[in-house]
């Protein structure tokens, strides 16, 4: 139990230390993390279902200006192990994940506040013309500082969380559980809507509606959807007037 909790702590640290751009943006996603969590707890099937379900809610969660709206990595590293051990459904896992993801934002705020101190040390190194010192401040020291900030919360939550969840589950009335289940099914709407806002073109709403009803009426696979989508994009850009303005 302690070993598993520690491994999750390490996993969360690895997912959030942000080393190597691109990798860092994908490793923190619940879908990617669920594979490792599945290995740690020896239950790949459940982990993947939880990870896939959580992923939909966090689909559009990007970080404009570096401010993360929610910490999907902490949500995954706490909710998926808890759901596996407490034997609850993915809807409940989503409901557990939401508040944890929001708490995770505090950790990121703590990290970025602390790192302001590093920049001031860097100012001094720059004055001295110490390039190697700046590289250490940009990489080695923040990685060391981030370790306790990331490891400890995930470790503790995994160590003590299961009991708390099980107690909670047995004490809450049925309508609350059902309500959390409903919330788990609606919350992916936020992920999709956020992505639509990021795409940022309101006049593209008809494409959203077409995509929606193509699936609602026919139930075709997502690969089929992608084929239609790319062809439609090709047709659209072909007939598009060259200097269309980008709207905000």
């Amino acid at each position, binding site marked *: 139990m302690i070993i598993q909790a520690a491994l999750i702590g390490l996993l969360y640290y690895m997912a959030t230390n942000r080393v190597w751009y*691109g990798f860092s943006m994908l490793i923190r996603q619940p879908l990617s993390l669920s594979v490792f969590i599945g290995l740690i707890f020896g239950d790949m099937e459940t982990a993947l279902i939880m*990870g*896939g379900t959580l992923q939909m809610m966090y689909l559009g969660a990007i970080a404009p200006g570096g401010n993360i709206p929610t910490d999907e990595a902490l949500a995954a590293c706490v909710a998926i192990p808890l759901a596996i051990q407490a034997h609850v459904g993915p809807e409940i896992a989503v409901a557990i994940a939401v508040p944890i993801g929001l708490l995770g934002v505090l950790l990121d705020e703590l990290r970025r506040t602390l790192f302001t101190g590093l920049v001031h040390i860097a*100012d001094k190194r720059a004055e001295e013309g110490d390039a190697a010192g700046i590289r250490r401040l940009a990489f080695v020291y923040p990685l060391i500082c981030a370790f306790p900030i990331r490891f400890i919360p995930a470790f503790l939550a995994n160590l003590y969380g299961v009991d708390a969840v099980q107690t909670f589950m047995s004490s809450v009335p049925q309508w609350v559980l059902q309500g959390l289940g409903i919330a788990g099914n609606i919350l992916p709407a936020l992920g999709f809507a956020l992505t639509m806002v*990021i*795409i940022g073109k309101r006049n*593209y709403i008809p494409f959203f509606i077409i995509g929606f009803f193509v699936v609602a009426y026919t139930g075709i696979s997502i690969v089929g959807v992608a084929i239609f989508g790319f062809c439609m994009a090709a047709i659209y850009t072909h007939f598009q007037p060259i200097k269309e303005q980008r709207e905000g």
Partner: protein
Amino acid sequence: MNQEIVKLEPEKITKTDITKSWIRWFAYSEVSNSYERLQALAFCGAMSGILEKLYKNKEDLAAALQRHLTMYNTQCNWGSVISGITIALEEKAASKSEEVTEEEEDEVSEEVITGIKTGLMGPIAGIGDTIDYGTLRPILMGIFIPFALAGSAVAALLPLIIQTTFTAIMGYTLYHKGYSVGKKSIIDILQSGKIQQVISGAGVVGMFMMGALSANYVKLTTPMTITTSVKVLQIQTFIDQIAPKLLPLVAVLGVYLYLIKIGPNYVKIVGFLIGISLLGSAIGIF
């Protein structure tokens, strides 16, 4: 920032130097992200090896390091092009003393470098986020989530593998491209119809995918009934006769409207959705 009279020759910047700088940029970019200056430390760290080769004089090096510790924030993949351009500009600035009069273009000052960096970082971040995280990532996730839900661990890892590879190739190319084309062509690229076409094409696919995924994964039905003297009417059946999955559609569009009209208040929306689910469950609407 006065020019030193005794100036040591700057070393030549090689392709390896640029690759090394790119590796540092990708490794560092978000690691030291702070509230005060965001990616400044990462940018300066990535640039530091280049600056060491260009400015052999301690004071010049200090000044160069300091000017790259100013606030910086962009999307790190597409932002690679800015770093490439910066290297080209720094190289010009460092060699200024040699070709004094020749061309006017050689007038690369600190203001020009900082101006180009700050001018490009915003628009590039917008383009990069839209393509990488507004379109590519949701599409990859959308394609592989169903396979993961069906139990394939490989499928769950494929978005990670594919996007990491794509980002690395893209970033590497843009870093070198930025260096070779200098400052002029980025403005050409931004203004050309090509990039606009890519962005709008990506937007179409993205929107279409969001619709398809919403229909697949947002679930909302109502158990409400209307009891008439003749029979019990299921409201859900009635809704389904108009069009399938209308309630999920309303949910997504409702959240979307909230986001664009009132603002991206993540916490409030999550709270509201959970609240309304609990309420709906308690009084039997959902």
